[in-house]
Every structure is written in C-alpha cells, then in structure tokens.
C-alpha cells in the first residue's frame, strides 16, 4: 500500500511539472506585452524596457520558467497587471467561493445521482428507469450556462423564489447565501448528477448479472441485503473513479456559472483576466486549478487503491 501511495505521489509530481510547462508555454504566446499593458500607451520605450527588466521579461525562457516555478513553490505567483496586487492574494480571495459551490455541487450530484442510478438498475425496464434515463440523457447534453439562463428566467424572474445573481459568504449571512447559492449549485451539479446516475446504473446492472449475485439470491438472501451488501459494494468502484472526472468538469463549468450568476470566484477571474490581458493571473489560476484537480484525483486513487487491492498492483 505504501509503495502504491509513493508511486502515485511521484506520478502526481511529474504531472504537475508537465502542467506547469504547458501553462507556461501557452502563456508565452498570449497577445500583448505585459510591460506595455502595465504602463499604458503613453510610456516611452525606455520606460517599457525598464519594466521588462524588472519583471524579468528580457531573460531567456528557461530562466523565466525556473524563476516562475521557484517563486510559485514558495507561494508567490507574481503581480497582477490589472489589479496591481499579488496574484496569490487575489486567488486566495476568489478560490474559497469556487471551492464552496463546487463541493456543494459534487455532494448534490452524488447524493441524488447515485441513488437514482441504483433505483433505475433495480427497476430496470420500468417507468422510473426510463424517466431517469431520459433526464440523464438531457442532463449530459444541456449546457450549464443555458440551464442557468432557464433557471434565472423561471425561478427568479417569473416565480421570484431566488435572487437573480450575486454571492454572499455563508459566514456573513447564511440565509441569503443559501438562497443565492441554490441555483448555481443545481446548474453546476446537473451534468455530473446525470453521469453519476448513468454510471451507477450500468455498474449495478453489470454486477447484478454476475454469478455471485445469483448465488446470493439462491441462498435465499433478501433482495435488499443482496443490493446493499453484495451488488452495491462491487458496483461502487467505477462510480468512485467517476468522481475524479467530475471534479474536473464541475470546476471547469464554474467558468460559466460564475459568469452568469456574478459570483466572484476563480472561473470568473480567469475570464476577466483574459479580457484584461492580465496573463500573470491567468497563469496562476490555471496552475492552482490543475493542482487542485490533480490532488483530488490522487486522493481518489489512493482511497480506491485502499478499497480494491487489485488496483495497487497495476
């Protein structure tokens, strides 16, 4: 087990090094000279040159890369050009909001999606099964931002149940915060929920068809015991794998949801910084998001390496 954890940890470190290389090289081609953006159009060439010197922009690319990584490891992601602040500080302000709505969405997707998949598998072929399949099919095809637009129209503008947009910290005003967060969380969770329902259903069906389920049934065990003790335990592993993939998708979708609902999180920060040509912030955001996704995947891998000894050997 320890060897497995160390191996996965090393893999994650390599992946993160690759991520940093990708992020660094993509942003080398971003339009606009950061020094020019910082100083404005009236600055003289000498001033621009001086700032380039200060920012280290006239050094060779490998030097720039290692300086950037070196600083990043110490928690320094550079200075934002548009906000004139430390990127680490800006991210620290935006990140908790994204994490908060992402975790809520993930929990919602799992506690509804997995039971829905189980019910569909048990009642396969029935009306409930086809209903769940139809909802899941649409869930995977509906763009999160369009769902958000629909929700705002029906639940905010027409029914007036929820505020149209905005974000309040749950520590400040829990009631208002919950009201504001309900629609974004549902929109974020919907596609993931559909995937969980589908994956759980097919994993359950696969296990139900196996010999040991038949044995359990012929022993005279109750159907409920079979489902919970035998089928679910085996079917849950592919579902856990899906959590890793969905972390990625949910975090990715925050880019739309935060835009539509005006939530000052990471997704909105990325889009805003792209329009501001604030490449240092974009770089930092993508790196932080990738680290979070990679670490969650590491945790998930370790936890199911723990649950299923077969995985450790691979």
């Amino acid at each position: 087990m320890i060897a497995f954890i160390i191996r996965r940890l090393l893999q994650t470190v390599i992946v993160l090094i690759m991520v940093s290389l990708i992020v660094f090289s993509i942003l080398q081609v971003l339009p606009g000279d950061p020094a020019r953006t910082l100083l404005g159009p009236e600055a003289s060439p000498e001033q621009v040159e001086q700032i380039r010197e200060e920012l280290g922009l006239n050094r060779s690319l490998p030097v720039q890369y290692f300086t950037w990584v070196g600083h990043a490891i110490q928690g320094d992601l550079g200075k934002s050009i548009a906000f004139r602040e430390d990127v680490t500080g800006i991210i620290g302000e935006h990140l908790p909001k994204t994490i908060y709505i992402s975790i809520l969405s993930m929990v919602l997707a799992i506690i509804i999606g997995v039971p829905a998949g189980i019910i569909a598998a048990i009642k396969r072929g029935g009306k409930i099964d086809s209903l769940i399949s139809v909802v899941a099919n649409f869930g995977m095809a509906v763009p999160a931002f369009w769902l958000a637009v629909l929700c705002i129209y029906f639940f905010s503008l027409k029914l007036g149940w929820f505020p149209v947009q905005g974000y309040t910290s749950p520590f400040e005003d829990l009631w208002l915060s919950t009201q504001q967060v309900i629609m974004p969380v549902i929109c974020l969770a919907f596609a993931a929920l559909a995937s969980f329902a589908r994956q759980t259903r097919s994993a359950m069906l696969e296990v139900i068809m196996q010999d040991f389920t038949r044995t359990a049934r012929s022993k005279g065990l109750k159907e409920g015991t079979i489902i919970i003790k035998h089928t679910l335990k085996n079917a849950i592993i592919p579902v856990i794998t899906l959590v890793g993939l969905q972390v990625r998708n949910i975090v990715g979708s925050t880019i739309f949801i935060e835009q539509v609902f005006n939530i000052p999180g990471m997704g909105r920060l990325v889009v805003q910084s792209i329009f501001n040509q604030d490449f240092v912030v974009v770089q930092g955001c993508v790196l932080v998001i990738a680290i979070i996704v990679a670490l969650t995947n590491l945790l998930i891998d370790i936890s199911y390496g723990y649950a299923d000894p077969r995985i450790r050997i691979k």
Partner: protein
Amino acid sequence: MTTEIIASEKVVEQEVENTSNTLRFFRVFLARKTVVASLAIILIMIICAIFAPLIAPFDPYKQDYTQVLADPSLAHPLGTDLVGRDVLSRIIYGSQAALLVGIVSVAIASVIGIILGLFSGYVGGLIDAIIMRAMDALMAIPPIILAVVFVAAFGGGLTNVIITLGLSLVPTYARLMRGQVLAIRESDFIVAQELMGSTNLRNMIKHVLPNCISPLIVLITLNFGVAILAEAGLSFLGLGIVPPKAAWGSMINDGYKYLLSNPILSFAPGMAVVLVVVAFNIVGDALRDALDPRLKGTL
C-alpha cells in the same frame, strides 16, 4: 434503455443466428425509436448546415430596424433579435458552425490521439511514460479552461476554436488507443503472429487498429456532442466564434440581455444545442450497444 437493448438483442439473436453481422448490427442499432429520432435530428442538422441559404427564410445578417425584438409571428416564427435579424434563420446558419467545429475538431483529436496512443503503447518505456504523463497533465486542466486559455492565447474565431477543441480532446483518444494496444499485445493471436515472424509494427497497424474500431466509432460520435457543447460555451463567453457570424452560444449570450421581455432569444438557440447533443449521445450509446455489447459502460 439498456434493458430494452438486452431484450431486443435476445430476440434478434434467436431470429437471425445465421444471418450476417451487418444485419445484426442494424437490427440492434435501429431497434429503438429514440435512436431513429436522433438520427433524424442529426440528418436535419446536416441538411440545415449544407442548404442553409435555401432553407433559411431570411438573410441571417440582414438587419431590419422596423422589426427590432419582434415577437414570434408567421413571418418570423422565433421572432427577431436586437437588430431585427430573423432568429430562426440565424439558428439554421448556426448549425454550420456547430457541425464544422464538431467534425473538424474531432477529426484532429482522433488522428493525433490515435497516432500518439498507438506509438506510446507500441514503443513503451520512457517515451510511453512521457507521452502518458503529458496526457495526464492535459487532463488535469479542465478541458473548457484549457480551451479558454488556448483561445485567449491564439485568438478567437472559427479556425482557432476548432484547433483548440481538437487539441483538448486528444488525451481521451491517446489513452483509449494505448489501452487497446497493451491489451491486444498480450492476446494469443498477436503472440502467434510474432512467432510466425511477422514484425511488430506491421502487427500493430494490421491487427490493433481494426480491433479498436468499435470503441473509436463510439468515442467519436460521443465527442461530436462534447465539441458542440464546448463551442457553444466558448462563444457564450465571447471567446469563440466572433459576431456577427451566427453561433448558438453567442446567440444565447446576446438574448440573455433581453431575458425578461424576449426569453425566446436565449431559449431557442439553447434548445438547438440540447437537441443536437442529445441526438449524438443517444446515437453514440446505441452504436456502442450494437457494435459490441462488451463495451457497455466502459466509455
């Protein structure tokens, strides 16, 4: 839905045990009405994209200031937008962008991914490790964020959106192909071929590729939907296809400003996205069930 498939498969198996595989494929594939309906939606979309100038009732770019934000009527079944352009015509023209992005980006992704995966699985060792970790790294960044950053770096517009989405879809294909290569390498018939003196490279291309066709077809079909969704997302954020060119995503965003008075402006293009993506997903699922029942749940 799967049960219906299982049930229909049983019937088919009993009936046509002696007939060809092709027949079995079509009978299983077309067994459900939803699949036929989905194929019809895809066909309509393709026809709309190709014959847009003939089908669309109006010029999608012609602004008519006497008809600004008009409600749906006989002349304009889905109303008109802020500058009096016919929404239905713009949706019909929008299918061109969606279809083009779907086809070309998936083609780019699958070709690069297949080559990388074959090569990686075949060569093994350090090169394999480097390629696969690079794929892991690409997968650690959510695809839509990767696409947004790519587009920011290289600029928006149709061509860049296509290249960007193509590249962000590569890892799935590379992983699939590599997995298949590794699995097939161990199988008896490849070992037998090697014993008979067939070279490795020839083996790979001749035997591995045909064996991967089924999962590839399924993945490609499902990825059409993914690409169309992503394109809509990029255009919605204003980072994709540049106005005034008609794209469903940017139409949703434009209409969003008039949500209270003219909700149909955002509803209609979104509906187009949903219908097309659902259709591709259903066809992908049906293909998987029909091509190879063993693949169920693996993709």
